[in-house]
């Protein structure tokens, strides 16, 4: 599924990122980088991030372009499919978030809430490769 999300995102990356004119703010990578999250916290942070994308990103990304909307739908449904598995993994492994990592996730929400909803959602969608690169690196 991650490969399918990756290819879906690659198809819309240029279009979505072009809709995000703000260079000086990132939702996922600044001031804290996902790459600095402790490996013991990854299970929990991935779980949190998938909920974040399901609850606060995809629904605010409808565009005037039906091709883009279809690709966003397939990414969102793939996310949902993985989220189902993460819930099982989360319950089985009881993966807790450390204090430090929860601070980083809160910072992500702060970054998101620092912008209007549509800009924040489009920016988050445009940063999907940051999430995928980090997830695949730790696979």
């Amino acid at each position, binding site marked *: 599924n991650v490969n399918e999300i*990756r290819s879906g995102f690659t198809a819309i990356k240029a279009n979505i*990122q072009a809709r995000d004119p703000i*260079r000086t703010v*990132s939702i996922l*990578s600044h001031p804290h980088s996902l790459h600095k999250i402790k490996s013991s916290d990854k299970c929990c942070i991935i779980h949190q991030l998938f909920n974040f994308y399901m609850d606060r990103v995809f629904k605010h990304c409808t565009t005037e372009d039906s091709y883009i909307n279809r690709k966003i739908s397939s990414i969102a449904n793939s996310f949902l499919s993985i989220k189902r598995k993460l819930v099982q993994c989360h319950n089985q492994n009881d993966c807790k978030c450390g204090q430090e990592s929860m601070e980083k996730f809160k910072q992500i929400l702060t970054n998101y809430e620092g912008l209007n909803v549509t800009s924040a959602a489009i920016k988050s969608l*445009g940063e999907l490769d940051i999430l995928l*690169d980090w997830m*695949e690196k730790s696979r």
Partner: protein
Amino acid sequence: GELYCPLPNPRNVHFESINMKNVLHWSAPEGTGDGVLYKVKYSVYGVGKWIKKLECSNISRTWCDLSNETSDYEEQYYASVKAFLHGMCSDWMETTRFNPLTETKIDPPMVSVSSTEKSISIILTAPAKWKRSPEGESISLAQVYPGLQYNVSVLNKKTKKRWWFSVSNDTLVVPWLEPGTAYCVSAQIHVTTPFLNSGFSKEYCIATLKDKTA
């Protein structure tokens, strides 16, 4: 004072990246002829400031090596170019967001072959990531892309038959071959996530030794 900027803009501003040697390229503004000079700046996505690339200030060439400034492949970048001519200037023209990890092109692997009477041994070496200086630490792209594999083609020059091998480590021994026969080897790098393929290396040919007993 603020310059008057009616000059046409530089065109097609983009990164060209090979093994994470990241070079900014652009085309001259339309219809400007000779004498145009350029300035370049770059920024780390999500960080609030543009940084001038001093070595690319007032240059006439249409490229600028930003490998040093974009070497952290856990970050993403923008770069921008402005043209100047006869006291006038253009707008700053930006790249799209550049992700070195997924947008670099990977060179084919180095291939070295040796042979015995009945086998050939193939050693594959992935290219190294661009580095600041020859003395700097060499990082193989195999470390950058943990899922890196090799597709290896072995052509029997006598029978003209080509075999394919999919190899995860960097050595491959093909035993039980015909003595005194030429084999040509070529290899390609394949990364599954993110999806990246190098081109094929040139062919390296070697002959198995002649059968001493024959």
